[in-house]
């Protein structure tokens, strides 16, 4: 085991400063993807900047018509939040289905979004609800944030501080689990929002994406049968041990239909 240094700043400002000083250090925001990567030898950071001691990054609040979730809020806290359960039940449900109990009590929303695993659940909610990502220096709209496989709009050393979710009229998330890892083989988040219907898909491609064909149909009529006959192209979708691209494409429509039924 290599020796690493470990920082535990008490404020976002200190964390940003440390990140600037130690460019090869890894920011630790729960560590549910990062630490296994280190154990598998896929990642060898020089040190850690652990955000767990920054109280301003934790907790939930309402801000007008937005649910605001601090970046270091754990999945279990989001799932258990009465505010989230009553305003955006789909989000509470999604958070309660991430990983297992242990992961949900360590993993954080900010950590998940900064990592942007192509099969993670949170990106589907953020993109599906048209949320806004607040960082130490700016606000980033969901549509501008996700840049593909493990890539985001975050600059080096930029730290997510909170996520603003506008409360939708209706929303639901349906996750089809990869049988072994139980990550999303395909996960579809459907929401009827002030700015229209949004359909976000995780697990199927190199990163979360929206499906315009489904959004158009559902925008005209937000009902399960609107999904019928929508054929999502398989091109560009993932093929792996657990599913072919055409199976994933097929599942997107099936799951979208079920999500709409659940949202209604």
């Amino acid at each position, binding site marked *: 085991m290599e020796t690493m240094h470990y920082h535990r700043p008490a404020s976002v400002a200190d964390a940003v400063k440390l990140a600037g000083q130690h460019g090869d250090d890894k920011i630790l925001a729960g560590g549910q993807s990062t630490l296994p990567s280190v154990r598998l030898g896929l990642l060898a950071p020089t040190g850690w900047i652990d955000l767990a001691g920054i109280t301003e990054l934790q907790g939930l609040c309402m801000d007008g018509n937005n649910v605001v979730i601090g970046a270091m809020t754990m999945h279990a806290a989001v799932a258990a939040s009465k505010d989230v359960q009553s305003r955006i039940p789909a989000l509470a449900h999604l958070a309660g289905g991430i990983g297992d109990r242990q992961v949900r009590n360590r993993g954080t929303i900010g950590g998940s979004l900064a990592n942007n695993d192509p099969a993670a659940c949170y990106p589907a909610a953020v993109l599906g609800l048209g949320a806004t990502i607040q960082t130490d220096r700016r606000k980033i709209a969901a549509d501008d944030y996700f840049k593909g496989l493990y890539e985001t709009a975050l600059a080096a050393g930029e730290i997510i501080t909170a996520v603003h979710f506008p409360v939708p009229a209706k929303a639901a998330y349906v996750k089809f689990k990869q049988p*072994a890892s139980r990550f999303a083989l395909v996960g579809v988040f459907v929401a009827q929002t002030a700015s229209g219907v949004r359909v976000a898909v995780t697990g199927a491609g190199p990163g979360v994406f929206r499906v315009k064909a489904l959004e158009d149909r559902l925008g005209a009529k937000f009902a399960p049968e609107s999904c019928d006959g929508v054929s999502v192209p398989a091109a560009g979708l993932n093929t792996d*041990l657990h599913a*072919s691209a055409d199976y994933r494409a097929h599942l997107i429509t099936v799951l979208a239909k079920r999500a709409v039924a659940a949202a209604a």
Partner: protein
Amino acid sequence: MNDPKAGFIGKSVERKEDFRFLSGSGQYTDDITLPRQSYGYFVRSPHAHAKIRGIDTAAAAKADGVLGVFTGKDMAGVGGLPCGWQINNLDGTPMKEPKHSVLAEGKVCYVGDHVALVVAETAAQAKAAANLVDVDYEILPAVVDTATADQAKTAVHDIAPNNVCYVWGCGDKAATDAAFTKAAHVTKLHFANNRLIPNAIEPRAANAAYDRAGDSYTLYVSNQNPHVERLLMTAFVLGLPEHKVRVVAPDVGGGFGSKIYLYAEETALVWASKRIGRPIKWTAERSESFLSDAHGRDHVSTVELALDKNGKFLALRVHTTANMGAYLSTFASCIPTILYATLLAGQYTTPAIYCEVKAVFTNTAPVDAYRGAGRPEATYVVERIVETAARELKIDPAELRRRNFIKTFPYATPVGLTYDTGDYDATLTRAIELADVKGFAARKAESTKKGLLRGLGYSCYIEACGLAPSNIAGALGARAGLFEAGEVRVHPTGKVTVFTGSHSHGQGHETTFAQVVADRLGIPLDDVDIQHGDTGKVLFGMGTYGSRSIAVGGTAIMKAIDKVVAKGRKIAAHLLEASEADIEFANGEFRVAGTDRKKAFAEVSLAAYVPHNYPLDKLEPGLNENAFYDPTNFTYPAGSYVCEVEVDPETGVVRIDRFAACDDFGNVINPMIVEGQVHGGLAQGIGQALLEHGIYNEDGQLVTGSYMDYAMPRADDLPKFTVETAKGTPCTHNPLGVKGCGEAGAIGSPAAVINAITDALSHMGVTDVPMPATPHTVWKTIRAATRV
């Protein structure tokens, strides 16, 4: 639960070992740290098939904390890891047995093959230094696919140029072929039995220490049969004196077969411990377990069943190719032969059976016994083809089975076994009741309304357990005996320590065996302790596998108890001044028949150790007896399983709605433990049917090498099981009338699940779904069937 008056056999006594396990006070191999402990780490091949041009260990040897680096060259004088069963080809020539070097010599044959051992002060230092071992590989093409290995251009081993280890046959080929020419109907299927990776919760581990004073060794190892481990290691590999090596298998967290074998790791540690002069510990990381534990199953079979116009089975013909992996593991050769083809009669009177098995080498991890070992594969063959034939003939699958059930016993099958007893109608009838098959049509209609497809599948399995009559096994190629040993040590106060050669790694022997002893001696359960897993304590043992522990190990203990009671009668006769013939033993008391003159068990044991008033001229003092028991036949647990599934045709998801099992295990010692064994077996069998699959890509890389890609069954993948043990037909040839229950669930369930799925899809013309029937696989099957 401690009072002997009511007896202990047949009682769901809580497990004595559970306090230890549930309170975290178990002692597993990795928990044992010895004075001056050092740590080993294995350099493993990253390639499936490669020549080793050279190994440079200089940098590793100089790394921090390193005590030694060893390669195959250092161990060149050492023997290969042996295979314990010789299978002969159809022409009588023996199977091909390539040397299985402890550390690779000149060549590696699978990803994970052992190339070097690095020993250091800490585990982290050993691992870091292992990265500095520079191996110069010349990569060779890999042979991976089971079905085509014999046509590959590359040979895994020079001595087997077409990668064939053996071609073996069982049964009467001519009679079988002749029966097919007269058949009114022939059903044919071709399928694979998927490769499984065992995944015991405790990874393999070993800690080897050399004692200079005694020129002796102690090996702690996570293993199912320490005496066999010692015998194989000393006599066949390292050439050490057997009596100078003590092997301890302490608490072991599951084995399922994968810890029967002698592996390279512990062998290398024992050998190196003398060179280093310090104890060396190694504990597998989970990724090492995936790569290097012996895998299970991996067959490809073509199966044909011939029937007459009334649905009577005329003949069964099976051609199987079995993957041995890169080398022959300890019992690899007998799994797809002796433990497979001999079970192809199933529960039926099929008069002619022929099975031909081609075993092939590939550049994959060695394949050996895994829970059920050959019998799940046989049951899958028989029960899939029978169910398919019933559908083709439009006969109710349960009815077709009943028409062909064996009804008179003993019954000699055409594939070498003689079933002593059974009642297959009874278990099937009860399973049908438990499953509420009557209500199936109504449930199916409900499912249909929801757009879901419901199916029902049967599986009526039989297994040969209680391995095994040594003389029969020997005639079939076994290179070892298959008896068991036991010792009953009665202490002066009447407390009892029992030493058994059976090993418990989850089975609950410390409770079950104690129940047998306490019941027979009429003493409290707490007065009996069961000791196992240490060649320094237990006189001998063949270990635990093949559901043999209670049937063979338990019988050995029974025989030792008989000797204790016989001697106790002599002592009691003396104390009571009566004739030995008049002494009765019951309820923990030796009594002069028909009188109230008696001596308690503890009074007799005290007299044996304080022999003041004792027939010293005729009888030795002490009360300690041992016994060896070699069974006269296998035992034949059998049962019927009914699985009901709901398939979502849009996604391919299979949900097991209900699963009913009725097993005939003969007499049952502890129904709770037996039920737990069935649950565990069902979970593993359903795991095989729906989830688990060890997959190598064409380069021989294991692509399911972690829990991210290898799907283990979890609680929410499984239904609530309805499990019942039949009143049963006691085994006729052991005193407890027991048959064994450890593997039944894993043996019987895969066919029931796949039969249920194919039933749900049968209206589409689907006759087979490959295992594991993952959503993707089922969806593809549906799509292929419904595409016009």
